């Protein structure tokens, strides 16, 4: 039995990437740059750096988690609390901010689903 292509190393790498993205997102926001895509990039790179297994299922889960983490970071940055920020998230969405989120999702999906290690194995869908 395996839930969602579980691999502790990949998720540890993703967690490290998410923490790094959290601080980088805050620093860039203070400098006037809105970069939610950072979460997808760093989460994906963190997972791919540590895992020795390729699976699109993990990439999808990490992409979703990265997007949610970015949304929470944005909600907190607005200063009205997480709940208010997430419930009204769609009201603040513009085509360009949606594109930045989509970029982060796509990078996390494909990078987070792969491995930077030579000889990494591929896990079949559903296994």
């Amino acid at each position, binding site marked *: *039995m*395996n*839930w*969602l292509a579980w691999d502790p190393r990949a998720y540890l790498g993703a967690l490290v990437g998410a923490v790094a993205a959290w601080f980088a997102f805050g620093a860039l926001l203070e400098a006037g740059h809105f970069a939610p895509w950072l979460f997808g990039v760093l989460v994906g790179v963190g997972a791919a750096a540590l895992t020795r297994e390729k699976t699109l*299922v993990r990439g*999808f*889960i990490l992409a*979703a988690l990265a*997007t*949610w983490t970015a*949304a929470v970071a944005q909600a907190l940055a607005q200063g009205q609390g997480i709940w208010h920020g*997430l*419930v*009204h*998230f*769609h*009201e603040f*969405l513009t085509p360009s901010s*949606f594109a930045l*989120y989509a970029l982060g*999702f796509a990078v996390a999906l494909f990078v987070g689903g792969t491995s930077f290690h030579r000889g990494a194995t591929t896990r*079949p*869908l*559903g*296994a």
Partner: protein
Amino acid sequence: MAGLVPILLAVLSVFFLADLIFAVDHYLVHHDRPRYRLMHGRHHKRYFGKKDAPQLDAYEVTTYSSAALMLTVAMSLVTLFTGNVGFVLGGLLKWIHSLTYHYYQHGWWSEEKKVRDLELGRPKPTWGLAHAKYHAWHHSNPDEEPFTYAESWAGFDRILEWIDPWLERRTVNARAKAAKAAAARQEVRNS
């Protein structure tokens, strides 16, 4: 926050769309020998034997739940980006439906009666709702018609039957068969 009608429409859309995806994937896994042997075949092997576990065994719980969790996670993002909570509720509803639907069906068989011994009968190829007995036909007779992959609307199976001649040629099994035939022809030419 979205109104009641958009929420209900989102719930129903996700519930039926998810079943379409599950039905097509179910069809494809039955036409993909390596994938079938690795995972799904275990499911049917259990049905052909005596009941060896509670209603749902660990493999079935993780399989149904992994697919439903993926759907729910995807729909949670759609909810975040649209503000319509119906999308994530539709994912959760499909999750509950998949588990309870199979839990109910598995209550029919026992150590004494294998699934085939239940003699549930060949269902009519309808366009209505896919009731539990309809889908159970696939459990006992996976290679026989009519298709009963669907868990909510039987129409998905009728559409699959209609496109089957076209889709079957594009499956992993058909491609492997074509590659084997081409290799055999090449060998004849070389000899």
